[in-house]
């Protein structure tokens, strides 16, 4: 039905062409409702894919299957040639609900979540303060997240996923509650994120992979190098985005 496109923007560091996410005839049923139907696709390392589709087309389900939050009814998902459950350090997922504690401030939330990523004695994974500044929030803001506006929560949520320094970033509607300026800022940030260096794993240079869903194609197209369109739980179209180099995304917008 579709093949993995290996178009890659020239700005990402050269990597091996391996696909870091592979889905093989994945179906997910809720009762008799099929949220995903025989989805076969793959995402290559270092790519940035945007998924379009109407509400209920299965976009979120697809992301959650890759994140390992949902086990498919049929078919297999492989992330970094392993089960999605085993890749929690390398994959981050941001859903359209903020996944933050309302009673805590942004810094407390981020500190807590970065502590969950702590391995051994080192508490240095990610830097909450830098992540917050990157999304344009003041780390010293002493207000619980529950009192934030939708857009601020969304940005805090992005900071939460960025601070864990993931290799694969799964974003569900990252621009939905943002005003034009913040959305543009977020696109710039994601474009920048793709250029962040990755520590080589087993001697192979890593690269940042992004998969995200959105309705705002104008924002997404400069960033993405492949678009998937979903309808009724199936991928109906998969094509490379021809023109751009991802750094030009920022120029085009700026």
């Amino acid at each position, binding site marked *: 039905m579709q093949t993995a496109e290996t178009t890659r923007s020239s700005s990402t560091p050269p990597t091996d062409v391996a696909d870091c996410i592979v889905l093989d005839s994945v*179906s997910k*049923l*809720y*009762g*008799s*409702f*099929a949220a995903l*139907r*025989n989805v076969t696709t793959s995402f290559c390392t270092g790519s940035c894919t945007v998924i379009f589709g109407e509400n209920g087309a299965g976009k979120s389900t697809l992301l959650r299957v890759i994140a390992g939050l949902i086990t498919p*009814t*049929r078919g297999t998902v492989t992330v970094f040639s392993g089960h999605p459950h085993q890749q929690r350090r390398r994959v981050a997922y941001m859903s359209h609900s903020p996944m933050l504690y309302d009673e805590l401030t942004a810094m407390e939330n981020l500190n807590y979540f970065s502590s969950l990523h702590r391995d051994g004695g080192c508490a240095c994974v990610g830097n909450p303060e830098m992540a917050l500044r990157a999304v344009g929030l003041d780390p010293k803001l002493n207000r619980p997240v529950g009192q934030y506006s939708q857009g601020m929560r969304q940005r805090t949520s992005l900071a939460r996923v960025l601070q864990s320094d993931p290799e694969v970033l799964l974003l569900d509607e990252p621009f939905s509650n943002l005003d034009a300026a913040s959305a543009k800022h977020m696109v710039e940030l994601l474009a920048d994120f793709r250029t962040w260096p990755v520590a080589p794993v087993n001697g192979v240079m890593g690269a940042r992979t992004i998969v995200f869903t959105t309705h705002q194609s104008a924002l997404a197209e400069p960033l993405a190098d492949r678009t998937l369109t979903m*309808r*009724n*739980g*199936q991928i*109906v179209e998969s094509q490379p985005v021809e023109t751009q180099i991802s750094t030009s995304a920022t120029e085009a917008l700026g």
Partner: protein
Amino acid sequence: MEQRTPTLRGVAWLWFGLSTAVLAIGFRQAIFLVPTDAAQGNVGRIFYYHVPIAMLSLIFPYINFAASLFYLYWRRRDPLKALTADALALTTAEVTVVYSSICLLTGMLWGRATWGIWWTWDPRLTSMLLLWLLYVSYLMLRRFSSTGQTHTLAAVLSVFAAVDVPIVYMSIRWWRTQHPAPVFGGGPDSGVDPSMLPAFYWNLAGWTLWGICIVLFRFALERRRQLAEQEAALQAIEASLEIPQ
């Protein structure tokens, strides 16, 4: 659909017939042939039903526990086998509830006749009641939990129940007791008169056969339901593929 060969069907009917026949012999033995108990009179005959059923209602939970462990082991490795184990776990839990209900009811009737009270908070009675409660709550969980989770959560609860039963038994045991010591292997005073043994064994065999019989029937039913569900799922996936894109 699963192939249901005529031989399999024949064996099932044979088994059903056999268990009914053995139960009939057991009935004749227990009601007509065994001499009346000197102390309890005819009421004592309930022994031949109460004790075998009590023994069996302690055995089915083990099958449930084992099936649940297999389910948890196969859950990720081999989902189809896991489903089979889950069907067995559900079946044995249901039969456990049925048998322990009968055991409690016959026990109450017997208790009323010999002790003069319907119920007493004695170790064996309380632990049987708890066993009943645990497996009723197991069935409740299966009812309440959301569809995709049911199997796993039920298997987890079954492990808890299996761990709990011996603890219950031990903790209540030296709390207080009124119930007679276990009939077999319970000490020098226990044991039954040899004249009672044939009736007891016939009934034990009959209720075992009967229990296995309903487990198998219920299991086959549950498997059919699962297969039908899978069939429907497959159709849901395939039907959509024909939609023109």
